[in-house]
């Protein structure tokens, strides 16, 4: 089916718009009584606009984009996982180790040879770490390499 992407997006936005608009009506009346403009006025307008927009998308969708399948989709998923894991490990492992792993993995998956990829990661991690911690006086987490 052509335009499936826009239709699904439209449906998602419609749900979002309705939920957003509904939530706005649930807020308690602000202290001092209701006036012409309350905290819910603006969100209500936005939700109406988005409902209209999402309906339009569903009725008149644009042709579909080409979505990645198979290997490309897998690579994308890997990249996102790498970024999330990088965030998780940043503080426990410390900046240098986690960055070497993250930048290395990304470069490697984007087509670099493993050795160059991880060397790129290590070098860039050390350079940025030294630059930030000693040059600019910021503290990036040292993690496992922390010297007490």
């Amino acid at each position: 089916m052509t335009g499936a992407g826009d239709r699904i997006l439209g449906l998602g936005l419609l749900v979002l718009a309705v939920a957003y608009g509904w939530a706005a009506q649930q807020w308690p009346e602000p202290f001092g009584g209701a006036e012409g403009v309350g905290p819910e006025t603006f969100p209500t307008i936005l939700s109406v606009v988005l409902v209209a927009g999402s309906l339009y998308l569903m009725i008149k969708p644009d042709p579909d984009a080409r979505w990645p399948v198979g290997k490309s989709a897998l690579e994308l998923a890997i990249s996102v996982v790498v970024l999330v894991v990088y965030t998780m490990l940043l503080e426990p492992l410390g900046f240098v180790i986690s960055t070497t792993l993250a930048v290395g993995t990304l470069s490697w998956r984007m087509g670099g040879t493993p050795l160059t990829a991880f060397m790129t990661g290590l070098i860039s991690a050390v350079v940025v770490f030294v630059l930030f911690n000693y040059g600019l006086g910021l503290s990036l987490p040292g993690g496992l390499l922390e010297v007490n």
Partner: protein
Amino acid sequence: METLGFLMEGFAVALTPYNLMFALLGAFVGTLIGCLPGLGPANGVAIMIPLAFTLGLPPETAMILLTSVYAGAMYGGRISSILLNIPGDEPAMMTCLDGYPMAQKGRAADALAISAIASFTGGLIGTIGLIMLAPILAKFALTFGPAEYFALFMLAFATLGGITGKNPMKTVIAATLGIMISTVGIDIATGTQRYTFGVLELYEGIDFILAIVGLFAISELLFFVEARIGGGRKKMNVGKITLSFKELVSTIPTQFRGGVLGFIAGVLPGAGASLGSFISYTLEKQVLGKKGTFGEGDIRGVAAPEAGNNGASSGALVPMLTLGVPGSGTTAVLLAMLISLNITPGPLMFTQHADIVWGVIAALLIGNVLLLIINIPLVGFFVRLLSVPPMYLLPIVTMVAFVGVYSISHSTFDLYFMVAFGVGGYFLRKLEIPLVPIILGLLLGPEMEKNLGHALILSDGDWTVLWSSPLAIGFWAVAGLGLVLPTLVGPILRRRMHAAMKESPVSD
């Protein structure tokens, strides 16, 4: 002349060694950003924002740094246009038409030199235009009431897609999404918690810096991963400059026309740098007609679009500085910096923060000179960077973005948010929902709500106040046109731009 006095004070700010150093750094980094594959100007400036913060720069220095990056990025875009026939950024598209043929004829060095000079002229004309126009517009904008501002914001959103934009409805959706994100947090007027779900980190709202960096930088990485264009390009040879003085002189009228046209296109809502360079090029082709060899490597075909897009980039600062309403993605990112420095953009900035405004304007002038100076001798260095493979570059850029966002708050919560924005940005870009209106919505949302509230309180809840003054009606009318015109004129213009690209005999 009052303006001249202010400008002198601006120079006094911009010429301090400290600020001059950052202007130079910005110009250099900007050119890098412009010429490196996969780093657009908006993206590049966005990554610089958290860094400017963590450096603890004073407001005027931070703005000078970012403005220089902005000006530099416009310079850098041309390098890959000329050498590789791949525009470094969208406005540099027209430079391919004559720049690449020149390079093929072995005159790459000349093309690079003339484009640097034309960029300088364009930037200079644009900045002079900015100096003359901005104070007048700022004074005029002081008469705006809240209703006019609300209408003006609508105009900004409606025209943001630009005349060449594809589906205006998607611009509307994007802007609405952005404004919706901006309503998260505690309502300033009443203290009501909105959409916080009791999460402490959301009470202050979603920081637009991490949203911008996520939307641009992370989604760019994902696009590269998907397209798997990780390999580098072969090394380029630039050769020696053979440009004669006579040739240079022959392009002066072209540069002048291009700069003026570009500036006008930059100031007008909905036009922007891409259209600026397109109009400059087409006009030049019409004016010189048979006398030129356009499309086959005419130096005036390189000078015109470059002067045009640099004129436009200065022009685009006019609405941003005077009204607080940016007309392009990169100026929206500059606005983000202003807002996070706690400076309310708009006409009052000219009186309350005159040092910053005029410092920035003076920095633009100085930046242009610096750019010309570093671009001619260092061009070989920038050319070598073109062959850096994105597979090493983009992960490093992403890491720098992580470092920047992390160093603002030292919380990994923000990083998760940034990744989430990146993934969201990827899907939205895939579905052709433009990202710039989202950013603008995020930035302008609170101001819009505030002005709406003020207008309605002043009128005692009468909604017609929003379109009761002639000025407001005018804004609404232009906003309406901004949404309708793209569907009528857009396809024609887009086809012409495409046709121009195809006409050039060597493009592949």
